[in-house]
């Protein structure tokens, strides 16, 4: 009997505790229906459609689209551009985060804002600025053509545009993380005799590794998927300056829908992996970065 009574009390009290902030049924129903319906139509459906369209004409068409030489060369170029842009932005991101999170200096707010710039500047403009500097009519255009160096409509231009569009990601991820962690552990390491590099490798890096990983993954996803900026500087030369997203565009405009979606499905897969890694990293980070008590 006693057991029953105490269980009833417990149930009742927890119901009361929640009831003050419990939304009425009609509200829950409305929010869930509208919110999830919106989610399903605007986010989930486009994702499903990519894969469904990719396999609509069967696996063989799908496979043929991927092993097509032009597709192969687009994949290669995308990988090359990302392989250059991501490490550059990794070094930049760590360096910027260290300077901004660990020190105060005049102009810090401006610098932080500047790092956000690619988020609000159209990718088309990101491409345009490099055309203006390196293009045939640009500042260095004649000098470059005299020396037979191609930047625009060539791989360097694609890399530059990719770097511009993706440089905030690592820094954006690390700055709040490093600001939240403070400098106590670094100071402790220095007091114990560690050098700057020892402090960074042994203390800072292990503490930011998950945030860093996520920043890199996100940076990579954007680098491989960038369309607007790369489109301006690439020149769309098949087999030479076509990246995967540009290849998708070409196939689509040629009404090779199944092939376009096949290549697109690789990029969608990349997006899914990115999101999965993010969820994983967030789980790990919240487990390992639990603040030491008493802050």
């Amino acid at each position: 009997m006693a057991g029953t009574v105490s269980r009833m009390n417990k149930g009742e009290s927890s119901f009361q505790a929640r009831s003050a902030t419990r939304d009425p049924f009609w509200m829950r129903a409305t929010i869930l229906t509208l919110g999830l319906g919106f989610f399903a139509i605007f986010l989930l459906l486009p994702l499903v459609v990519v894969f469904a369209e990719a396999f609509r004409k069967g696996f063989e068409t799908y496979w043929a689209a991927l092993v097509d030489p032009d597709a192969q060369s687009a994949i290669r170029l995308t990988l090359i551009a990302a392989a250059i842009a991501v490490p550059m932005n990794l070094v930049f991101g760590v360096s910027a985060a260290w300077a901004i999170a660990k020190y105060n200096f005049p102009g810090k707010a401006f610098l932080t804002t500047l790092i956000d710039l690619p988020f609000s500047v159209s990718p088309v403009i990101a491409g345009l600025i490099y055309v203006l500097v390196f293009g045939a009519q640009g500042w260095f255009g004649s000098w470059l053509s005299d020396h037979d160096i191609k930047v625009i409509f060539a791989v360097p231009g694609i890399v530059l545009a990719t770097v511009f569009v993706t440089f905030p990601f690592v820094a954006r991820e690390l700055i709040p993380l490093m600001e939240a962690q403070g400098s106590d552990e670094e100071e402790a390491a220095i007091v114990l005799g560690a050098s700057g590099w020892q402090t960074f490798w042994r203390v800072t890096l292990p503490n930011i590794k998950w945030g860093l990983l996520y920043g890199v993954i996100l940076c990579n996803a954007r680098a491989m998927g960038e369309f607007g900026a790369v489109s301006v500087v690439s020149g769309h030369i098949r087999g030479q300056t076509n990246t995967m997203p540009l290849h998708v565009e070409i196939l689509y405009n040629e009404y090779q829908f199944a092939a376009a979606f096949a290549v697109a499905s690789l990029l969608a897969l990349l997006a899914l992996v990115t999101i999965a890694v993010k969820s994983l990293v967030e789980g790990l980070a919240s487990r390992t970065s639990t603040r030491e008590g008493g802050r």
Partner: protein
Amino acid sequence: MAGAYANRKVLPGFKLTLGFTVAYLSLIVLVPLTAVFLKTSVLTADQFWAQITAPRAMASYRLTFGASLLAAAINAVFGLMLAWALVRYSFPGRKIVDALIDLPFALPTAVAGISLTAIYAKNGWLGQFLEPLGIKIAFTPVGVLVALIFIGLPFVVRTVQPILEDLDTEYEEAAASLGASRWETLRRVVIPALFPALLTGFALAFARAVGEYGSVIFIAGNMPLISEITPLIIITKLEQYDYAGATAIASVMLVVSFVLLLVINLLQAWVARSGGKES
């Protein structure tokens, strides 16, 4: 007591990291950006004005800014609902929905563009049902709106969500204990607390939408004066080697971007002040 200049001496690397950061930003961002404004000086003021107020350009501003505003507003409403559902309710698949909210951040815009077109085209997944009802989405300004909704949604959800998570239910319980109805509690306690974040999310979604290119061009149809967005005008002019014209339009967009960046910064400071924890 964050000893500003003193800590510089204790933690090494200040000059190295700041120097590298500034040099990198100068090379990648600042120098090329100044090229835009220098290039526009090729044009006389009259020519510049004629370029940026040409009927096609004006129509594209109306579409770009109008659709972006509308998309951001729609996202503010539904994004708030989604954030609320994700934080306050439990339902099957909540974790997956939460993770997939980031999809537009991670999915290449071109992929989103062709996928949305395949959905809303005349014989598309949804288009085939909408067309008989007289609703045309793909290759109309509505298509632009749909694409901009897709890319903007996570901005609202991801700015509101953390604030909502930090918002202790104590405040709502306090309001309830003082006799407020659930609706009054939401209106007077919850919405005011979320408002700065919601506005920031709105601004972020708007800023992103204004510059968006990849996801829009496939579904827009790109008809001059009707469904042509401003970034596309820049590209078209570039393809015609009208660099000065492209740059003139670009400088208009850049100014808008800078203003938006400033507004977003102020909003974020507001969020940090009002939505942050009292510590």
